């Protein structure tokens, strides 16, 4: 039945969060981020001293990102209920959510490449480290559009009993806007807008996690409400 499949997909969002925290933060040790102001040798030391643990942590991180796909799919399923026959915003969410999932896949692979031969030239390790970080933080646009699509879809709900309460729409637009400062990391090596700064890293990361935790209960509620309205009429 569709309810069980959907609930499974919602839980995948939580599995993503748990595995991601475990792999990227607790095992590989990417939080707090290494400073973009470090020298090549200091960056290389991170990969040389923790080679095994970084490889293993990144493997878990890579695995976690796969669970973002069912999560995006179940949000799309619920948005489709709002939009009906011509689901342009649902497709927008699906496409940007897919790109977002790819964005979650690529940095762990780039950092894995750095950890694969940690004895190579320090400059080359720094190149891969930079590429991973820039790709990870600066790629806000698909996530921005993803939140915007959900927000606009929620606002377009004209039915008697709403799929999502309207505050969910406002919340998503707020979340989307907070991802934008990530784009500024291209200009800075230090300060609050560098990739280890409060506005480019800590704030978007907190909001990103919060987004999953807020969407989780409203999705569960929407799925339950759907199975009530789909009961055969007596």
């Amino acid at each position, binding site marked *: 039945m569709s309810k069980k499949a959907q609930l499974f997909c919602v839980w995948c969002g939580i599995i993503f969060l748990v595995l991601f925290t475990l792999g990227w933060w607790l095992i590989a040790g990417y939080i707090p981020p290494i400073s973009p102001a470090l020298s090549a040798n200091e960056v290389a030391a991170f990969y040389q001293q923790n080679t095994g643990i970084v490889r293993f942590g990144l493997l878990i991180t890579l695995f976690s990102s796969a669970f973002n796909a069912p999560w995006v799919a179940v949000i799309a399923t619920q948005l489709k209920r709002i939009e009906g026959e011509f689901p342009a915003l649902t497709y927008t969410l699906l496409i940007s959510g897919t790109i977002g999932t790819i964005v979650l896949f690529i940095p762990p692979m780039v950092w894995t490449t750095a950890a694969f031969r940690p004895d190579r030239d320090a400059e080359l390790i720094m190149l891969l480290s930079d590429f991973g970080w820039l790709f990870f933080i600066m790629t806000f646009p698909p996530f921005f559009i993803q939140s915007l699509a959900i927000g606009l879809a929620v606002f377009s*709900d*004209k*039915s*008697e*009993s*709403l*799929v*999502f*309460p*309207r*505050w*969910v*729409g*406002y*919340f998503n*637009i*707020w979340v989307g*806007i*907070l991802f*934008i*400062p990530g784009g*500024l990391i291209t*200009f*800075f090596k230090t*300060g*609050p*807008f560098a990739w280890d700064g*409060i*506005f480019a890293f800590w*704030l978007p990361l907190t909001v990103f996690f919060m987004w999953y935790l807020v969407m989780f209960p409203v999705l569960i509620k929407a799925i339950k*409400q759907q199975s009530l309205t789909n009961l055969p009429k007596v």
Partner: protein
Amino acid sequence: MNKGLASEEIVSPLTPETPRVPGEAGVWIFILGDMVVFSLFFTVFVYYRGHDIELYLQSQATLNQFYGVLNTLFLLTSSWFVVMGVEGLRSKAPKYSPHFFILAMACGIGFSWIKIIEYKEKVSAGITLTTNDFYMYYYIFTGLHFLHVLIGLGVLLFLLFKAKIIVQRSSHKSTGTTQKEMTLIESGASYWHMVDLLWIVIFPLLYLLK
């Protein structure tokens, strides 16, 4: 069960005794959320300013205070026009609300015009985002605020269209504004007031603080 926007009832002028939140509750999640983030911006600014006060004061001296004052006037006036426009819609036969929203938009466009001139002058003087920390905050705070203004102009355009529809309908049947329409309009107006409020903090912080 989640309820949609409330009823088709017609609104009437407000009495001061009724305590209420303007607009829909959800819009306040966005407004308060946004203001929390800007407060964080300002806290970080004041903290780092304390570490290098000379540099901040020197850089501040190059900002054009006249533009800042002019822009403050633009936004305050536009907020007043929005209040007049919204208030007008509460009467049985609203008439001038669309005019007020047009005036509010004109002020918003005036603000944008000045902002662009100001950025142009700074860039042609060789001052950019990476010149020093003060200008980093200057460009990012005013830039993000400017983004809010541009979104706000879209919101005001929406209010203008809504008001025109209501005025046109009321001139035939003098029905006034429904509660549902009023909630939407107040939500948009609340957003515009937030844009105004943020500027009122940004202006003294960047241009005046000694």
